[in-house]
């Protein structure tokens, strides 16, 4: 296990935005430890790391390790390197594991069950609902939900896990103190508070630069045992995550969707190419041999007494959602009469209103 000073020296290296992965490997090869690099820092290194990174490192070295440590402590940011008790075992085995992780919250060396849920930032209602539901149910069964804290599917997955009181890990493409998107700062705080973690391999103040995200994506799959793709359009960044998952030997799951929905184009293609088809959390548990899904708070449902008209309306919505004018036609009712019926059924939790004046029956 690395000592405190070595960790801080590693952090020092991570803080240089221009220090590449290969250059860093070379440095370690030559000097064996980050503290050695720090101590014997000289202009000779310029050949290995390049001019820009050298200047950055020299600058940062001026600040001193003490100040850096104080700043990290102040924001409750912890560090871990491969081999530490908080560095996930499965992450250490990917082709290019990060030399250092910054994190808030709790990380374990042996994360027993972890599933990444990834997808589009421009999600549809369907995708959002499924991501939320599956994350929620997985979390209820003790699965840690890994995602990227982005808008859309990521957010829904984190929220699902949190609402189940489960553990979830957010892996950022920016620094920990620079949560992106800003509106998810509150969500990040909740994740750490509820036994999860917010993780980044970039220095805490790092900006959400475009090239960070593909790099980050290898960690999303690296942290997990399987990756579930919920929704993605062609050329989506989530494809990179799936690519990493395949390279890292992770299971790839995909949620099917309508064939004409742009958001489901990629998952559907993945399914054709051999990804596991997922319809619910139980499917993942079964595929991963993690046992049966145990339902949370499932209450038995008693159909309330309905009038003939209410029953007819409910039945006509059971097959597929219908919009207001279609309902008017099938029910042969005036607008105001139909409104009354719709409200009473909504109040009984039998139907649900969707955008676009659509109504659907709630599956009991």
């Amino acid at each position, binding site marked *: 296990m690395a000592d405190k000073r070595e960790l801080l020296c590693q952090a020092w290296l991570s803080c240089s935005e221009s220090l590449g992965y290969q250059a860093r490997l070379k440095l370690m090869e030559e000097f064996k430890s980050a503290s050695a690099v720090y101590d014997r820092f000289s202009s000779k290194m310029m050949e290995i790391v390049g001019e820009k990174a050298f200047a950055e490192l020299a600058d940062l070295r001026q600040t001193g390790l003490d100040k850096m440590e104080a700043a990290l402590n102040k924001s409750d940011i912890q560090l871990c390197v491969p081999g530490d008790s908080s560095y996930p075992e499965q992450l250490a085995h990917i082709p290019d594991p990060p030399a250092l992780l910054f994190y808030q919250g709790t990380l374990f060396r042996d994360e027993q069950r972890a599933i990444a849920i990834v997808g*589009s*930032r*421009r*999600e*549809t209602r369907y995708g*959002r*609902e499924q*991501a*939320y*539901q599956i994350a*929620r149910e997985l979390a209820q069964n003790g699965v840690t939900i890994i995602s990227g804290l982005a*808008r*859309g599917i990521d*957010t*829904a997955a984190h*929220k*699902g896990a949190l609402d189940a009181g489960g553990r979830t890990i957010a892996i950022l493409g920016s620094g920990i103190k620079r949560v992106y*998107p800003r*509106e998810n700062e509150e969500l990040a705080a909740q994740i750490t508070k509820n036994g999860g973690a917010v993780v980044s391999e970039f220095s805490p103040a790092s900006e959400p630069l475009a090239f960070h995200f593909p790099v980050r994506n290898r960690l999303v799959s690296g942290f997990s045992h399987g990756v579930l793709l919920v929704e993605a359009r062609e050329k989506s960044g989530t494809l990179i995550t799936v690519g990493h998952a395949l390279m890292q030997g992770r299971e790839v799951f995909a949620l099917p969707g309508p064939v004409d*929905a*742009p*958001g489901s184009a990629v998952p559907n293609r993945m399914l054709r190419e051999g990804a596991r088809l997922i319809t619910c959390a139980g499917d993942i548990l079964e595929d991963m041999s993690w046992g049966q899904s145990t339902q949370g708070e499932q209450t038995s449902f008693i159909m309330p007494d309905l009038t003939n008209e209410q029953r007819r309306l409910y039945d006509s919505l059971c097959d597929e959602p219908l*919009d*207001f*004018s279609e309902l*008017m036609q099938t029910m042969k009712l*005036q*607008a*105001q009469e139909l*409104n*009354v019926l*719709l*409200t*009473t059924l*909504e*109040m009984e*939790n039998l139907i649900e*209103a*969707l*955008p*676009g*004046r*659509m109504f659907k029956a709630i599956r009991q």
Partner: protein
Amino acid sequence: MLARTKCFALIGISGEPVTVEAYVSSASTFVFNIVGLPDAAVKESRDRVVAALKNSGFIMPFGHTVVNLSPADLKKEGTAFDLPIAVAIILASQQMMAKPFHDTALIGELALDGRLRAVNGALSMVISAHEQGIRKIILPKDNAKEVEVVTGMEVYPAESLYHVVQHLTGRDPIPAQAQKTYQECLNEAVFDLDLSQVRGQHLPKRALEIAAAGGHNLLLIGVPGSGKTMMARCLPGILPEMSQEEAFETTRIHSAAGVLKPGSGLMTVRPFRTPHHTASMAALIGGGANAKPGEVSLAHNGVLFLDEMPEYPRQVLESLRQPLEDGVITVSRVKVHTQYLSRLMLIASMNPCPCGYFGSRTRHCRCGSHEIKRYLDRISGPLLDRIDLQVEVDVVPVEEIVQDSEQESSEAVRKRVRAARTIQAKRYEHLSIRTNAEMSGKNLEDQAMLTKEARDLLQNAVKKYNLSMRAYTRLIKVARTIADLQNEEKVSMPAMAEAIQYRMMDGKYWGEQHGR
């Protein structure tokens, strides 16, 4: 020699009496001055008057001519002074012999050939003249129709300066215009769109009817091309007819703002104003150096339609709050403070999301939920507070357009609306309000008279949809109107159940939770 004529200056939308004094004296040089705080348009009247005099067979007296507009400390603007100035000069230079006409006021703009052109604010001036005890008025022919309903006035529509002089000398008197009753004007009202032309759209139509019946503001949400604008345009046709008082109020504002077409009569159709979303704040609520009335005042007693509401700058939308609340707007400028009436119905339309196709069945929406939220957030809660009804408008499929042949006319709907309004007027007799939309305060529930079942349903809905206090009061108001349309004394459960369907923005779009 000295001569006087009477006329009126337009201040805001009211006429102020002004006496035009002309003094002509012989001198060796030609001097012609207008004093008494004239603005640029009044100063230019000098040149118009000189040309018009010459082209009407008179001469501009050579020598010293001073025209004073009294009271001299009142700012005068506009072109209505041309005629009184010209006549005063003709009198002062003794080119005409006429009996004294102190009971006659003159207003009108002169063309260079001596013809009379319409002026802004004629109705206000005539009403003000009547209040001042003046019983005869000569005005341009194009302004005559506008004032034909004013009682107790002899109106002489004149075509040119020459005709005016002929009239005043008694050589060729202009016949006084025949008076019309307000009812006659009402019968001539033409609406540009009838509800029967709208196919399908049963839900929005019903919402329009409720909005009209209770004076509620309405928000139409729907994909592009779903006919939101068309629906809104039908509203003036289903609102109850304006009373004569209302017609006067509205016409005066339009006349003063100069948006009344020359030759048009009293406005009997409620105004429908559609300011573009690039309109400035001054254009919308009134302003400019002279504190002119804005769109909210032009929509007084009528409808203000904001198409694509989120596109309007936020502060412009916020400035609508006072007129919506109080029915008046105070426009304050350094030189002028004016209050304009602005009792209007607000109809707003918007797309459900930036690309417009959120919730559509035919096209896929390209927006992320954060983009939708940001788009909807452009309309602030306090403004949304004042919009009681929200309804979705969807594209009507072609087969429905073809099938749906029997459509109710605006006339039929207007009848029901009128009945509901009568019930409300009776209920609020002793209060300072007229419609359900204006209900407020702690006694809302008592005033609205909910049955127990309606109250229970409302409580359940509040719990289920997590409704705010403001949504709660909106539901009560709308339910009250629905009950009035049904002629129910108390608000029944079905009325409340229907009202609950018009609260889109509180649930589906507005407070939408991720994953729920």
